């Protein structure tokens, strides 16, 4: 454009009050599009002066932004950008997040472990697992009624514990009764998972009768719910051992775990299973125990066992599934997928898969990554803890309802995690201790963190005494001592994490 033209536009407010801010915005737009038409063919807008009077704009974009936008649209000439700076949005687009909630027709069974005196057993309490109505962690769309349980694994003979674990169990490794007692009394175990490995015919080959004595002694020594496990690979011997164990534990509602159930190579409908499998179900049924459908990474096999158990009188509420408890680094993805698939089936109503899931992260200790001193693998002790914890996380996030673990340090970390998920009221010393630094720095005036925990629980002092916990840590402990209901999530907790990390 050769000569510069000066345009003067006056925008006047319409007579009468505007009905809505947007109406006024629309009016403005209309007007501007008229201007745009007027400017058709104009390639530069230098010198444009706009005079706007008496315009009240509420809840709409600023007129300058609107004008700039409209003019840019209208002229579509690069030169226009020179004249008017690109619009800088000053308000966020509106957006409402709709929770992607699904409804599920199926849900997991609830399974109770243990029996109190009134129930015909001698346990101090019972534990209930399962009952999930949604996939793991989907609390926004349904109930996950029971906190997963972590059971302590106890062997009836030393399995060759690595250094890291000898630290905790060195004094009890040859005595399952003392071992179980230590787990309960010192570490606060809520359940013992007794592995009768000494009955392995390829190993010590102790008799079923001997094993039954151990079971009896452990039941007498501790009052928490119990699981009994055999996994020698020899189905005949394993079932023989479990049958005797089931008898001596009659009425205690223990879990009878057999890791050696072998199915026919081809799973044809109506195909008879090995006699031992039926004997196993029968023992559980007669003495009121829980069975486990264990078939590693084999969903059809799990369904076959579940159906067979129910057909042979084991109620659905007395069956668990072990999908194959592999460790991180050893095809854990296949176990995750198996659990995902079980959830997908269970929640759409497939009754062959609605039994709670158990997982044995303790298996991580079978692999050298968890215990071998290899310098380039990093600190052996911490790595061992991390390997079992990592395996537990994979299982937990995939919906496991019962974890069987070995390393007290790892269990403590997992329970800490569960506390953060479920916000229980903490009333025990070991429960509180896991949320204290554990460094025994004495700065609080107590000799150990444990003494401080004890004093806090008795109301004799306050967690503010702890010199190591920061504000967030103290707040976390207070939440656990006196849980707010419903739990509150305050965005301030982490709003300035960039600066607040130590």
């Amino acid at each position, binding site marked *: 454009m050769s000569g510069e033209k000066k345009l003067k536009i006056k925008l006047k407010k319409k007579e009468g009050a505007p009905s809505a801010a947007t109406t006024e915005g629309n009016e403005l737009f209309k007007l501007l599009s008229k201007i745009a038409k007027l400017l058709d063919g104009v390639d530069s807008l230098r010198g444009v002066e706009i005079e706007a009077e008496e315009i009240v704009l509420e809840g709409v974009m600023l007129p300058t932004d609107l004008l700039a936008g409209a003019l840019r649209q209208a002229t579509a000439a690069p030169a226009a950008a020179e004249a008017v700076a690109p619009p800088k949005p000053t308000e966020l687009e509106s957006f409402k997040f709709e929770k992607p909630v699904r409804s599920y027709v199926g849900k997991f069974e609830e399974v109770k472990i243990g029996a109190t005196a009134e129930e015909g057993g001698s346990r101090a309490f019972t534990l209930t697992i399962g009952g999930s109505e949604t996939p793991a962690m989907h609390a926004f769309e349904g109930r996950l009624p029971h906190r997963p349980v972590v059971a302590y694994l106890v062997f009836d003979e030393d399995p060759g514990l690595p250094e890291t674990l000898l630290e905790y169990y060195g004094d009890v490794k040859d005595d399952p009764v003392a071992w179980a007692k230590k787990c309960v009394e010192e570490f606060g175990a809520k359940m013992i998972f007794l592995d009768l490995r000494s009955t392995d015919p390829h190993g010590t080959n102790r008799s079923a009768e001997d094993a039954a004595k151990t079971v009896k002694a452990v039941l007498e020594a501790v009052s928490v719910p119990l699981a009994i496990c055999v996994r020698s690979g020899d189905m005949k011997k394993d079932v023989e051992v479990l049958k005797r164990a089931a008898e001596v534990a009659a009425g205690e509602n223990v879990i009878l775990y057999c890791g050696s159930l072998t199915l026919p190579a081809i799973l044809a409908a109506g195909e008879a299973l090995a006699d031992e499998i039926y004997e196993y179900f029968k023992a559980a049924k007669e003495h009121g125990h829980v069975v486990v459908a264990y078939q590693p990474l084999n969903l059809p096999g799990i369904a076959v066992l579940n159906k067979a158990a129910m057909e042979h009188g084991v109620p659905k509420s007395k069956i668990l599934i072990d999908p194959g408890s592999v460790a991180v680094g*050893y095809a854990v993805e296949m176990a995750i997928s198996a659990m995902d698939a079980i959830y997908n089936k269970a929640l759409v109503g497939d009754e062959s898969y609605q039994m709670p899931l158990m997982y044995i992260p303790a298996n991580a200790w079978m692999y*050298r990554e968890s215990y071998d001193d290899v310098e380039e693998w990093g600190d052996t002790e911490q790595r061992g803890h991390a390997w079992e914890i990592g395996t537990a996380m*994979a299982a937990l996030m995939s919906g496991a309802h019962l974890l069987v673990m070995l390393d007290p340090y790892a269990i403590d970390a997992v329970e800490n*995690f569960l506390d953060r998920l479920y916000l229980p009221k903490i009333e025990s010393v070991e429960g509180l201790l896991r949320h204290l630094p554990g460094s025994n720095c004495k700065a609080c005036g107590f000799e150990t963190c444990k003494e401080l925990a004890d004093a806090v629980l008795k109301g004799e002092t306050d967690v503010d005494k702890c010199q190591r916990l920061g504000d967030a840590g103290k707040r976390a402990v207070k939440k656990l001592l006196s849980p707010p209901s419903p739990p*509150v999530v305050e965005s301030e907790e982490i709003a300035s994490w960039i600066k607040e990390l130590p």
Partner: protein
Amino acid sequence: MAEKGKEVRASPMELMKQLPGEDCGDCGFDTCFEFALAIFDRRKRYDECTKLNDAQRKALAKMLAPPMREVVLGVGERARRIGGEEVMTREELGFFGKTVIAYDVWDTMSEERLRDRLKEIYEIKAVKVKEAFSADAIAVRNVSGDPKKFKEAVKIVSEQTDVPLILCSFDPKALRVAVELVKDKRPLLYAATKDNWADVLELAKKYAVPVAIFSPNDLDTLGAIAKTFAKNGVEDLVLDPGTFTEPGSLLQTFCNLIMLRRACVEDGVKEVSYPTMAVPATITMTVGDRKKAAQLETMLANALITKGINLVILHYPNTWGFFPMVMLRESVFKHPKAEEKVDPGIYEFNEPDELSPVLVTTNYTMTYGVVSSELERVKVPCWLLVVDTGGLSLDTVAGTGEWADLLEEAVDEFNLDEKVKHRILIVGQVVAEYKEDMEEALPDWKIVIGPKDSTEIGPFLKEKWKEFLKESGIEA
């Protein structure tokens, strides 16, 4: 309002129509249709076809675009592509945007300390079967509140590393000076918030870099910021709904991440269809002990990785935690249909000689991995004959009736008779019922059925091997 509706995936047949149809074999498949199947279930990327024209490339890109945007962090060999997810659970298709594991440094560190810490981060290593892993990215935190200091720290870090950087500050001024310095390295700006988004948007536009949006426990605002950015042409976004770790809050952290993913992959809510991230480092704020905090942080990262979160920022660099974390990540993000093969051949363990036992396994990665790690552990010298079963496990291949022939081929091909003096093969118990077949196929060899479980290999060899040799008339 949310734009709803998940797009239906193109079928292999539809994809096939966009391929050259020449069956040239360059992609490694014999036919274009096999390649179509492979790009359909994402074992391959469509650009691995060398003969695509522009129109076909464009059409395929559109047909195969996953609901979740793919975002590239960094440049060059160390760049990481995150996002691109399509499903909630890996068994449905697979997870693809492998979790980027980042460690932090901060700008109140002295230069010396900063360099030490960087060294500490570089030294983290993990090795899985021949593949080596190290830290994927470095997050620089603006703790000082001073843009100048932030810039200095970013300068030192960027000179020392070629991994993607994450510039962490809520102060647009600090972000501006930092991004100006490393604008060619595609750093991730962390973060746009409800307070600073307009300025961060300007930066993202100007420098064309990806941006994380941080909106703790407020998915409406998170989506609103993302929508505003997308509307203004900034679409390389990463969503951080906040990593709450306090009791009663942690569950919400997972819920938010899961809801965002489902809204994206199942409901097609475009506004939130971006990769997600979390900061497990926040858990350290609630723990009064470094060692403990390091374990809890690793634990939380593992939980997030299992759920397929695309980026995590950690505070405690160490190999003991990184190793299992990477193993878990490689598992979770492994394609469910990925080929599970190792090279067939004869492998040596613990310096075997001509009288050492020969064990037999298949070239299925898992079987090989389990057996080989056990052999390393028990330290018994032996040979491992890895038979080419096309990557099938021993029990799978047993059912096909071909095992004996495959075994014979392997013994022959790898000249086993030249390696050892004896003629004894130890095979797994799952093929015990094919003993006769094996003996028929290998008349010169004695077939011994080994233990069922790999953990029994050690005792088995130690106890029985000499007997077997004796039976064969050989004195050890």
